[in-house]
Each structure stands twice: as structure tokens, then as C-alpha cells.
């Protein structure tokens, strides 16, 4: 296979490229012949039913798993910030939010700034175990940001967050893309919310069923077969926002399309 060089990718503005990647666990094929490329500044969303291999694909992109076949090329400039699906910290481990962020960045003033950016500036000295689902996700996002990534990889970023909080979190992620100029590769179950804020959707079910803009994908027969016709683009919006403590916040952010 004539794989492109990492330098070539960099010149084309591509951060990472997968060609015909397959992965098996025992006799079970989890990914078959996946090809995709992530260019700078793009938001790419991976959707698919349970067991479709979404998390496996994320781990292959991250380099946590090696592919059985196929080629993966990374740009030499690639710098990944990763937000895992969930965080379980032993109750026996005393760990404040600030200490947790120090694994990515020793400078505590930068850690404070990252928390402010993700909307939880007051939680610096709180035990990690005391955070709510949404706060935990924001803390994980802050740690990913501290890496100054050009690719953010988010595995189900709104897990354990209530529906209004989910929308706020997606808006935050979309505005971070504009601010940092980084690409985003994320997994989501929530088709409605995600599709409005994404450039490209990849529908995965072991292989790539279909991919393209949200509008294209939502009418693709393969997509309809997997998710049914009830799944339409999500266009409903609240006329107000909730903050983390469920108080109604006055202004509606401009990124709220």
C-alpha cells in the first residue's frame, strides 16, 4: 500500500488519515475497511448503533489500539486533546479538580483559565468525586484544552448530562472550535443535537454506512435503515438557557444557531 507521508498530510491540511483500517477482537470483526481523514478545523461526528465500533475507532485514532490491517498516517503537527467517555476516580484517591488538571499542565494559572473557559471557574479546589456529570465533562474538556490541541477527540461528550446541559455543552464545543481553530472528532448518540453543529457525519456500523454533511446523511437510505425515519434534524431551540445550577441565564449566545 502506498501510504501518504505525514508531511504530505500536513501540507494538505489533514491531521490524520485512515486507509482501509480493520480491527478484530478474537473472531469478532469490530471495524472493517474504515477510511476517513480529519482536516484541521472540521467537526466530524461519528454516529452509529451500540456495538458499531465507535469507541474502538476512537481508540485507533488516538493510538490506544493498533489496527490489524490498513494504514494510519498522522501529521507531524498532530496534537490531540482527548476527552474520555467517562471518568471513574477511586473514592480512596483524594484529588481536586486543580490537581487533576495538573497532569496536563503544571501551571495553575493556566489551569484556572481553562476551567473559566469551560464554565466551571469556581470548582478548582473541589474534590473530583463531588462533581456532577456535566461538571465532570467540563473538567475533562478543560484538561483536553490544556494540551493546546489541534484535534479534540470527544467520546460521547454529553454522557450523564441533562438535555439542556447537553445543548450548552455542544455550543461550548462548537465555540471552542472557532476560538482554537482545532478539528473535532466526536462520538455521539444524540443525533438531534449533534447534527446541527457538525460539518460531517460518519455513520458507522462496523463499516462506514454513509458519510457526508448532516443533511445528506439524514436522507441516506443506509442511515434511515439504521435509525428509522423518525430521526429528523433537530431544529427546536429553547428561548432561554440554563446554567450549571439550572438557573435561567438571560442572554442566548450568538453561536446558538
Amino acid at each position, binding site marked *: 500500500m502506498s501510504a501518504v507521508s505525514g508531511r504530505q498530510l500536513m501540507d494538505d491540511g489533514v491531521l490524520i488519515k485512515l486507509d482501509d483500517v480493520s480491527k478484530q477482537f478474537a473472531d469478532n470483526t469490530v471495524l472493517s475497511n474504515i477510511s476517513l481523514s480529519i482536516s484541521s478545523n472540521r467537526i466530524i461526528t461519528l454516529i452509529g448503533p451500540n456495538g458499531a465500533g465507535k469507541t474502538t475507532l476512537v*481508540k485507533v485514532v*488516538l*493510538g*490506544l489500539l493498533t489496527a490489524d490491517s490498513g494504514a494510519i498516517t498522522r501529521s507531524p503537527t498532530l496534537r*490531540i486533546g*482527548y476527552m*474520555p467517555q467517562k*471518568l471513574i*476516580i*477511586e473514592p*480512596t*484517591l*483524594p*484529588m*481536586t479538580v486543580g*490537581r*487533576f488538571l495538573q*497532569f*496536563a499542565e503544571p501551571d495553575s494559572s493556566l489551569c484556572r483559565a481553562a476551567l473559566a473557559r469551560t464554565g466551571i471557574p469556581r470548582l478548582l*479546589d473541589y*474534590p473530583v468525586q463531588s462533581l456532577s456529570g456535566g461538571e465532570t465533562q467540563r473538567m475533562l474538556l478543560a*484538561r483536553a484544552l490544556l*494540551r493546546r490541541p489541534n484535534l479534540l*477527540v470527544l467520546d460521547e461528550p454529553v454522557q450523564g448530562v441533562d438535555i439542556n446541559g447537553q445543548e450548552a455543552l455542544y455550543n461550548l464545543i462548537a465555540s471552542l472550535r472557532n476560538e482554537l481553530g482545532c478539528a473535532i472528532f466526536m462520538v455521539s448518540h444524540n443525533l438531534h443535537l449533534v447534527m446541527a453543529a457538525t460539518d460531517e457525519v460518519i455513520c458507522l456500523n462496523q463499516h462506514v454506512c454513509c458519510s457526508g454533511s448532516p443533511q445528506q446523511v439524514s436522507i441516506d437510505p443506509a442511515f434511515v435503515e439504521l435509525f428509522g425515519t423518525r430521526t429528523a434534524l433537530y431544529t427546536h431551540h429553547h428561548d432561554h438557557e440554563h446554567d450549571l445550577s439550572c438557573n435561567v441565564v438571560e442572554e442566548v449566545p450568538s453561536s446558538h444557531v
Partner: protein
Amino acid sequence: MYDFLVLALLAGLAVAVVAGPLGSLVVWQRMAYFGDTLAHSALLGVALGLWLSVSSVATVTVICLLVAVLLTALENQNKLATDTVLGILSHTFLALGVVAITLVPGGRTDMEALLFGDILTVTASEVVAMWVTSAAVLLVLKNRWQPLLATIVHQDLACVEGVAIARYKVLLKLLLALIVAISMKIVGVLLITALLIIPAATARRFSTTPEQMALAASALAAASVCLGLGMSWFWDVPVGPAIVLSASVLFLLTTVRWSPRRNRRKTG
């Protein structure tokens, strides 16, 4: 004339200072059973030392390191649950150690000392060996604390951030093996994990960062060693169990003292 007491104290403190950070890591990583298995295998090291007529400190260290490597290899392969595997190996090693020691020709060994410790017969050269090992482990822990901890907190995150997690998982087990080897003389193979875990569990109650917990655990382990020696001196009880009991008493005292967390300020 109290030389043996001074030596015993020095030996106990050598273990106590590392028991804090290493015990905390064991608690966070849920490696208590792993530690037990290592500790039980130390008896085989003693048997080997008797058989070769060399110092048991060296043979115990070698055997513990070998077992640590073996367990790491098994961990990734076995289809049984890890605690089942460790449960089988732990007690197999214990039984095997006892049998092996009995079979060594001419070996007249005080089994109780091996199982529960014999700190009062520690020699000056053994104390030196303990402090050298202990200092080396502390130095490694100090230099590699951040990546070790990052690996424990979240493996995948640490790996994406560039930590060689496989290396640190092995390192932790090797350090544990070294400490098991030097703790054996103090509390015996049956009580080693207690000395690692109980002070760490006690320290958890008044720590807000991992580093505080590690340091507090060292202080508590040192206090337990002193209290245990004192108990043994005044009531003529075996030192190893007395040290562990002291650690348990400290744990219980802090449970009573600290458990109503919200009233902490009022009562303090």
C-alpha cells in the same frame, strides 16, 4: 545495651517512610491482593536463601521481583478473574513456602518469625540494606510520581498525553516487590499488606491531594512502628502484630474522630 531496640526502630522506620506513598498507590490501584501474593511468595525466597546458605534479604528480593514479573505476564492472559488468579497463587505460594522451608536439610527455622516478623533480631547490615532499598524506592517514586499517578488516575488519558503506561504499571509492581522484601523482617509475610494499606486508609480521611495522603500515611506508619515497639516493650507481645494493631487503632480512632465530616469545624 538497647542496641537491638535502636536497630529495630531504624528498621521499622526504613519501611514506614516508603509504606506511605507505596501503600497509597496500592490502595488507589486496588492492588492489596497483589501485594498479598507477593508477600506470600517471599517465603520461597527464604527457603532459597536457606538452601543456598546466603542472606535471605537477597533471595527474597530476587523471588519477589520474579513473581511480580510473572503476575504481570499472567494478568494479561488469563481468562479467570484477576482476584481468583491471585487468590489461587497467593495461597499456593504460602503453602509452597512453608513446605519448602521445612524440606531444607538442616534448616531449623522459626516459622512464627517468618509469618509475623522478627524485628528485634534485625542486624546492622540488614538495617543498612533496608535503608538503601527504601531510599532507592523513594527516589524513584519522587522522580516518577506524576506519570505513575497519571497512569493510575486514567490510563487512556495518560497514554494520549504521552505517558508510557505499560512501563509504569510494571514499575509499580517492581517497587512493591522491593518493599515486600524489606518489610518481611518487620511484620512477617502475613502482615505486610496491612502495614501498606492501613496507614494509607487512615491518611485518606484528612487529605485533599494524593501527595498529602502519601506523606500522612508515612507519618502514620512511622507512628505505628513506634507504638508497636512500645507495646512490645511494655507488654512483651510480638512486635510485628503490635505494629499492625497500632496502625489499626489509629485507623479506628480517626474513624470516630473524623467521621461526622460536616461537624469537623465545630469539633476541631
